[in-house]
């Protein structure tokens, strides 16, 4: 524990007391079960080629440069010897790992490599055994939760992520992974790495498709001009935010046959997605969902575990989703549409089970100022 705490201080090796303590451990030749997990060994600079530095080495050139010229974990090369001599170094502390051990920074690179699937990257310079995982492009972040939990149950390793199915932008941090002790046994690391390797991709970003959508606004009150439509603006903004576009809009009365005909028309014209608004409840005039069914869909799911959005309907004709948004989307800033749309654009095909699973975290708290997606809704 003491040694791990010391390693977490970036300049720990500057503390000669700690290093002296480590040296003493080495010299005492303790019994095998009493040996510390990490030992820093002092060697002459000329013997350092191929060894791994246990500490940063700072260089100061007045007026020009001040900073570490060599970092902890750096493998000393032949060409570095003159530079080290110029810095006044005659001896170095190096990591003295046995062949069954691996340094935390090398370990975390292997961990990140195994965890990061398509669309996920990470830096090449771990600090204290830690790396951030980032999105390579815009898309839907996906994490397989069960293997992630299993990975975190393994000793000496961890990985924390943002929630599954979160829309992310290029460069956004998706998670962090860390090798916990300064030195890890290779066998232990390999056991942990098997989990993401088997579950590959444990973490990924699904790229969004840019779709052309058709919008069918239903409601006799809108059709007759009694009230002004506000759905078009809402739907269009949400589509555009993911790089998609609204290709056509039609306003219809609560007429089942005309709604069916409009759905068929959009399908025949090859639009990638059809969105309907209104007419989703059980009132006698709410016939939109029946109109969609009448178009001859392949799958249809009515109802979801989300508030707002309980009366949501999702249907598919071939690969084209037909999304029935209930009228609640006029009032609430974030609804089930905001949870389902990114999944559809990422090429997923949610079904009734997926809509039901949204129940956990599916309650919008209707905050005075909406902070979605920075809230619990949909998480």
């Amino acid at each position, binding site marked *: 524990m003491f040694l791990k705490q010391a390693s977490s201080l970036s300049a720990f090796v500057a503390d000669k007391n700690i290093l002296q303590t480590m040296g003493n451990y080495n010299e005492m030749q303790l019994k095998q079960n009493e040996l510390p997990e990490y030992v820093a060994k002092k060697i002459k600079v000329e013997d350092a080629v191929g060894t791994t530095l246990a500490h940063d080495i700072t*260089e100061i*050139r007045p007026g*020009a*440069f001040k*900073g*570490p*010229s*060599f*970092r902890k974990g*750096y493998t000393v*090369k*032949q*060409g*570095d010897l003159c530079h080290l001599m110029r810095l006044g170094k005659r001896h170095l502390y190096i990591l003295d790992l046995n062949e069954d051990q691996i340094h935390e920074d090398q370990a975390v*690179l292997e961990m*990140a*490599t195994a965890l*990061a*699937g*398509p*669309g996920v*990257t*990470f*830096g*090449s*310079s771990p600090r204290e055994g830690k790396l*951030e995982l*980032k999105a*390579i*492009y815009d*898309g839907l972040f996906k994490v397989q939760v069960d293997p992630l939990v299993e990975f975190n149950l393994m000793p000496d390793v961890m990985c924390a992520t943002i929630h599954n199915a979160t829309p992310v932008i290029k460069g956004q941090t998706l998670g962090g992974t860390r090798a916990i002790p300064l030195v890890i046994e290779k066998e232990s690391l390999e056991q942990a790495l098997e989990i993401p390797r088997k579950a590959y*991709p444990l973490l*990924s*970003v*699904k*790229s969004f*498709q*840019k779709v052309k959508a058709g919008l069918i606004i239903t409601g006799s009150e809108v059709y007759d001009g009694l009230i002004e439509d506000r759905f078009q603006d809402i739907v269009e903004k949400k589509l555009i935010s993911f790089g998609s576009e609204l290709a056509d809009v039609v306003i219809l009365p609560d007429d089942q046959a005309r709604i069916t005909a409009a759905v068929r028309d959009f399908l025949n014209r090859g639009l990638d997605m059809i969105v309907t608004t209104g007419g989703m409840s059980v009132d006698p005039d709410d016939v939109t969902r029946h109109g969609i069914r009448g178009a001859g869909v392949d799958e249809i799911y009515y109802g979801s575990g989300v508030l707002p959005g309980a009366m949501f309907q999702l249907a598919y004709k071939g690969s084209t989703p037909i999304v029935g948004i209930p009228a609640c989307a006029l009032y609430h800033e974030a609804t089930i549409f905001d949870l389902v749309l990114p999944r559809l654009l990422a*090429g*997923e095909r949610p079904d009734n089970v997926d809509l039901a699973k949204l129940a956990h975290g599916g309650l919008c708290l209707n905050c005075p100022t909406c902070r979605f997606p920075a809230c619990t809704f949909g998480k």
Partner: protein
Amino acid sequence: MEDFDTLLKGSAAAHGHLCPGQVIGVRMAMLGCDLIGLDNPSVLPQIKSLIVYVEIDRCATDAIAYVTGVRLGRRSLKFVDNGIMAATFVNLDIGRAFRVRSREASRKLVENYAPGIEDKHRQQLEAYQKMPQDVLFEITQVSVDVPLNDMPGPTGFKAECQNCGVVVRDKKEVYKNGKVLCRICAGDSYFSIQ
């Protein structure tokens, strides 16, 4: 590192002509390397310590590559298409990086540093050599965490496009519609097939 005049001569020869961009590029590269503690970046062992991100594909970029020895094929030269006359010099060994940007205002100061020269091209050539560093450049210390898949060395990442079968290296694949695709098959192509 050789002196400025020698580097400028060599850079102009490598680029094909002497121009103000060569002057700016050579000065930018010399300054950038100095800021990150590299005095001889184009030879071992320092050649493995340096990565340069250039933000424009114009004359100065060739000068930077000439002076520093960074190469696209060696993965030590990174092109970020920002259209800005700037470059960031990264010392991988010590994690130190500086972004050097050419100041637009310096263009208007050419007359001050090379008065009486009629030819604009020649005037810029002269002036950019004489301008003080802080007049010509804005210097910012930055942090660059080079992704592992962008690092020099053997590729550790390969994926096969599930549409066309091509092998995509270095995490440049796209996960789309449940398939791992090359960028071309994912619809992100710079060409169209005739």
